[in-house]
Structures are given as C-alpha cells and as structure tokens.
C-alpha cells in the first residue's frame, strides 16, 4: 500500500439504534409498571389490545406533527407555531362555508392552510433572515389570533360524517388514525433516509456552509422544511378535528413543546444535523404511554405532573446509560480482539 495508515477504524455500533433500544426499554418498563399496578386490567387480552390502540391513537396527531418537527430541527431550525397552525387549519376547515364543500374540501383547506403558514414561516426565516425561534413564535401568536377571529372564539362543530368517522373507524382491524400515523412515519423515514431531500436536510442543518459550498440552495431548502412541517400540521388538524368532532382556536395547545420534546428524546440534536424519525416516534409513544399509565392508575393531576417530570429525566438518563455502557462493552471487546 502506498499509504501506510489505515484511516478507517472498526465500525462503531450505530448510536441511533442504541438510543432507540434505550427508548424501547423505557416503554417496556412503563408497560411493566402498568401490569404490576393494574393486573386486573392487563389480564384481559381484549382490554390490552384496545389499550394499545388507545395509546397509538393518542399518539397519532402529535406523532404526525413530530415527524415534521424532526425535519425542521434536523435542518437547523425550530417550529414553535405547530400548535397554532393546527388550530388555524382546524378552524378554517370547519367553518360553515368550508364544510359546505364536504370532506374533500375540508381536508384540502386544512392542508393548504398548513402549507401556506409554513410558507410564511419559511420565507421569514430563509429570506427575511429572522431567527426561527422568533419568527415561529410570532406566527404562534398571530395564527392563534387569526383562528380566534375566524371562529369568533366559538368551538366549531364538524357536521361532516366522513371527517368525524376517521377517528372512529378501523381498517383491517386497526384504527384509521393509526394507519395515518404509520403512513406519515414511513413516508418521513423514506424521505429522510432515502431521498436527496432528506440527505440535504442533514447537510443544511449539520453544516450549512458546507451545504452551500456543495451547491445546495440552503434558503430554498429551509423554506421547504417549514412547508413540510406546515403540511404535517394540516394533516394533524384533520385528525384532531375528527377526534373532537370540532375545532377551536385553543386546540392543540402546547403541541410545540410536546413535539420538540419527543423529537429530542428520540435523539434529534436541537442544534441540527442529526435526528431520526423512528426515535421521534418512540419519543411520542413514551409520552402517550405515560399518560395512559397515569389514567389507568387515576393519579391526581399534580402528582401526575411531578411523576412525569421524573420519568422524562429517568428515560433520558436510562437511554444515555444504555448507550454508554454498550459502547464500553463493544470497545472492550474490540480491544480484546485487537490487542
């Protein structure tokens, strides 16, 4: 060999897989706690099956939002306006005028509103050079205001049976909402890992200067990321409207915090350039499993909150612990192999 040095070290075990394993461990622990505290419920297989669906359905709308949020964060941004976009899209698609166009009109409206708000976010951030935190915070305030204006601060009931049935029907024995979540997660995974768009997202967030030098249009890409997040919010708006058979300006309150937290717990770097869709999904599932556990144990809300804070911390610590100890293990083995 002309060059004496071998520049590739033995492969390190995939960090993301370990992180996700850690989250699966957390989920398993939560389920075990459920079984131990409520054996009478868990002894009924029908109840268990139904409970899994309940958890997944609860995770469905926020899960869809989290997929979009994960893209935005990987791309180096943040979107605080997701909850507000859902409210605006939900309210707009349940006005009497929109409802008169039927289910297709309502879905179309929700998606278009979501994408359009994302477009405004993206333009402000990519071309107006506003800090994403500020631009989307301003959008949060403004979009909720507009939603309140449109709805006259009333809860708008959806009279459309097609929309309302999304939340109550099953396809092949699995709730429709769960199918939607699955479709969005799979699409998000493919988009992130198997398309030029996804790979460029990592570059734009991880090293924007390098992305620019490689000829990527960083601004346009940033714009597209916020539109993608807006689209996910539009989808989530329909899902939530269907669940609540109504929409109002205060709906999806604080979804931004939940989505960001789920993405980060799932291993997405808040500073951009790294993240996984599967991890984000697990993050969402951890949250909705915690909620479920509290519900079946009927914890008082204040106790619930205290315990929840503790669980979040424990989950992240556990996840780190697993990762560290496993890599140590692997390293030691490698050392033994190559003394």
């Amino acid at each position, binding site marked *: 060999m002309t*060059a004496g040095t071998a*520049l590739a070290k033995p*492969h390190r075990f995939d960090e993301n897989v370990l992180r996700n394993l850690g989250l699966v461990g957390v989920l398993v622990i939560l389920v075990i706690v459920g079984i131990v505290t409520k054996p009478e419920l868990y002894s009924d297989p029908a109840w268990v099956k139904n409970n899994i669906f309940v958890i997944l359905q609860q995770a469905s709308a926020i899960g869809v939002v989290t997929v979009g949020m994960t893209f935005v964060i990987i791309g180096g941004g943040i979107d605080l306006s997701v909850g507000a976009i859902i409210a605006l899209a939900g309210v707009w698609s349940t006005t009497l005028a929109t409802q008169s166009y039927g289910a297709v009109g309502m879905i179309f409206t929700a998606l278009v509103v979501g994408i359009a708000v994302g477009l405004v976010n993206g333009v402000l951030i990519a071309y107006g050079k506003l800090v994403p935190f500020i631009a989307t915070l301003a959008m949060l305030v403004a979009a909720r205001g507009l939603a309140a204006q449109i709805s006259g601060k009333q809860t708008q009931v959806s009279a459309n049976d097609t929309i309302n049935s999304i939340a109550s029907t099953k396809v092949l024995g699995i709730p429709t909402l769960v199918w939607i979540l699955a479709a969005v997660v799979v699409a998000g995974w493919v988009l992130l890992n198997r398309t030029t768009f996804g790979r460029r997202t990592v*570059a734009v967030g991880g*090293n924007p200067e390098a992305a620019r030098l490689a000829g990527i249009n960083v601004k346009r890409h940033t714009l597209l990321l916020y539109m993608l997040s807006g689209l996910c919010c539009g989808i989530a708006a329909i899902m939530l409207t269907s669940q609540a058979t109504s929409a109002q300006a205060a709906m999806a309150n604080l979804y931004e915090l939940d989505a960001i937290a789920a993405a980060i717990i799932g291993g997405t770097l808040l500073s951009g350039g790294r993240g996984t869709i599967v991890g984000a999904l697990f993050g969402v599932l951890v949250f909705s499993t915690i909620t479920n556990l509290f519900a079946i144990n009927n914890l008082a809300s204040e106790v619930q909150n205290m315990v929840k804070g503790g669980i979040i911390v424990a989950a992240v610590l556990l996840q780190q612990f697993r990762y560290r100890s496993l890599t140590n293990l692997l390293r030691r083995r490698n050392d033994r192999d190559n003394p």
Partner: protein
Amino acid sequence: MSTVLELTDVVKTFPGVRALDGVHLEVRAGEVHCLLGQNGAGKSTLIKVLAGVHRADSGTLLWQGEPFAPASPQAAMRAGIATIYQELDLVDDLSVAENVFLGHEPSRAGFTRRRTAAAATRTIMASLGHPEIPPGRLIKDLPAAGKQIVSMARALSHDARLIVMDEPSAVLAHDEVGNLFRIIRELTGNGIAVVYISHRLAEIREIGDRVTVLKDGRTTAAGLPADTPTRELVGKMTGRPFEYDFPPRAGADPDTEPLLVVDGLSRAGEFAGVSLTVRPGEIVGIAGLVGSGRSELLETIYGGRRADTGTVTLDGRRITSVGTAVARGMGMAPEERKSQALLLDEPVFKNMTLASFTGFATVGFTGARDERAAARRTAEQLDLRPRDVERPVRTLSGGNQQKVVVGRWLLGHTRLLLLDEPTRGVDVGARAELYRVIHDLAAGGVGVLLVSSEVPEVLGLSDRVLVMREGRVIREAPAGELDEDAVLDLVMAGSLMEGEAA
C-alpha cells in the same frame, strides 16, 4: 500547454479588510500551479472567488478564454472547477459516499441511488489509495486525515478541468503526502490543472511546476519556476530575504529534576504504558503517524481525559484535571484550533487571555485594560497580522489564529507547554517566529512537550525525541541520534526496532 484560467487585477474587500488587492494569476492545463504567501496574504480568499463562494469586487476572470464570474459554488463546479477547501467542509452525520456526492447525488426521481453512489465512492477511494474507507461510514467516525481524503474524493467526483487544493497536506502525515502527490501527477497527466496551496516549500519543489506569490493581497511574482531559490521566494512573500533554520541549542541541564513525570499512562484503545519526563528548559518531541494516539496522550497528560492507569505529576504533584493542570502552570495548544481552542466571535485579546483572565482580575472584576496591553505585547512578540487585538478571531487567517492559540500560554505563568501540531497551517515566516518563541520559552526554563507530524520539525526543535506507533512509545533518543529516515522507518515499518523498544 494552453492557459485555462487567467485572472487580472482581481480585488475583493471584506468589511474592514482588503483581502485581494490586485491579483494576477495564470494557470495552464496539466500543470501544478502553486500559490505561496504568508498567513492572511489572501490565498484562500482568491480560491473562494474562483469557486463562486465570494464575488470579486473588480478585475477580470477568464476561464478557458471566456469571461467568467461564478455566482454560486454550483456554477463554478458546472464550469469545471472543483475545490478542496482549507476548512473541512464535510457534514458529520452523513456517510462518506453522501459527502462525496453532496449536491450532485446520483438519484432517480428524488430517491438517492445508494448503491451507485457507494460503488463510485469505492472506485474513487481505491484510486486515492484508501480502499479501506467504507462508503457507508459516517464522517464523524473518521480521523482527520480520513476526512481530508474524503474532501479530495469529493473534488475528484466532479468532472473537473481545474482542481484547487487549499493546504491539503496540513492534516496529512508524511506517507499520505506522498500518496497525494501520486494522485496529483495522475490528474495533471490527464491534462487537468491543479492549483496547490501549501506553506511547505519542500512540497512545492517536489510537486509544483510554477509558483505565484501573494503578499498583502497583491501578486508579487507570477509564474516563477518551482525551483526558484528559497531565499528569493521568501523575499517575495515577506518583503525581506529570510530563511529559517533550527538554531543550535544548549539543551536542558540533564541533572535538573524533571518537571513533568508521566508514569505508565494508558487509555484503552488510545495509548498504553507511556512513561516520559520533561525537564525545565527541555523540549521533548513526539513523532508518529497520524492516529498513533499522540493527541490523546497530550490531552490526558493535561488532565483533559481520565487515564485508565498511570500517573502524571508536575513538580511532584499529581495532575488530575485541566483545572489543576492550568493552576500549576501547564498549558496546551490543542490540535484543532477552531473547535478546541478559539472563541471565534470574541476579540483576539479575550482569546489570548482565556486561560489567564482571572490573573488580571481583582476580586472577580476583570482588568480589561491590562489584558489588552498584555495581549498587544504578545501580538507584537508573535508578529500577529493584523496587529489588532480587538478584531474577532474569526476574521483572522488560519496561521494567525494559530498564533493566538500559542499566545494564550505566553501570557500566564506557564512552566510546561504542550504543543499539538503548533505549526499546522502556519506560513514560513510565522513558523520561524514560532520556533524562536519556543526556543525563547525553553531558554527561560519552560518545559515543552511537542507533537508534530513534520519529522524535520520534531528533530530540529527537540532535545529529545519519542517515537510513537499504535499508542506505544517504541523509541526514545536524543534528537541528535536520529535522522528523518530513521524516524520514518520506525513509525512505518518499525518491526526491526520493536524488540529494542520493548
């Protein structure tokens, strides 16, 4: 040979700086055209104008005879100019193949064709002499030299007529540089022009055909033959005739008590059983290949990493953390200045006093005036350009940033200085200054532990040399007893000597 690129009177200003102030450059097909100049002379800025990163304020660019003004990196690449930048421009969380093809991914309907990209990457890597770098490995899992190879692979992945290389050898070890030259010869053999930037004159003699010299953003010599005498080249670069050498040194008194004692230091997977001493006023050099664990060793000695076994003592007192190390008078100039040493947005003086501002403070209140004065003196001592201690470090050229890092430890009461690749990216003139500073420090009783991938530098500067391979010290000898070939033999083959070292 035909001219492919011709620049006349190119000017480029940044807020407060005229980085290019009338540059002429003429590059022919199939030649290696070297750019020489001191740190901050404008070399990187010039190639960024070529690459479409910056736009020239004025001047004319002719590319294959046509007027040319690339508006974006993509436009330059499309025209056939590929660039290896001085600062690594890779994305940590993408794989090798994804980095090589970033921006021009093989794809179908937006879906990446991973197998095609991997195969193409494997081919390029093989042609670069590194078939062991897997296309799927993440960049963050590669050592610095591996990253440099990927940068090169990226430039080769474009079908370029001109490849610009900005200090590609700075992070490469000796053997890697030979490999790089082999590739450059292949390229030029195919009629591709190469613009090559380096501060190492020996490299320029070996690979270059012609040389253009920049000084203060102006061309002072265009298209000189590569074998122009050193004295003349340095004269064009610095404005004064100037050559450096390693002046003879008295060395430390072998009877003095050692200042630093490292005993049986090990860290799993990095280095094992390292013992060494440094006496006051002594310069100890560590030679070895890239990846032989020298940086980790220095950081562990400095208390920045926890040793698995072994001890580090300074003046008989244990060093357990960076805090105690600094308090007892240790200083370290780490290998990667941007990520490990500098606050890029802070002014020069605050970077220089980063380890000593408490010393300038009274009951917690900083003494900014004294800090500035001290930083100004140090800037003088190191010949920092521009000599402005208020300027954010980000706007300094690479070599001058390195001077700021070294300058940090001239300010405190440093008694032992750990230097990791101190002259990486530093120009000839500044390099001589740094050597002088290191000598002065040693003469003043400071112990120096030096890591460098440039063997002549280690041999020339040090009193005593340790040779490392795969995390172990395989030879220790006074500098006078070793020569460059012997050291290279040791670090590469090494097998003959192994018994002796054990």
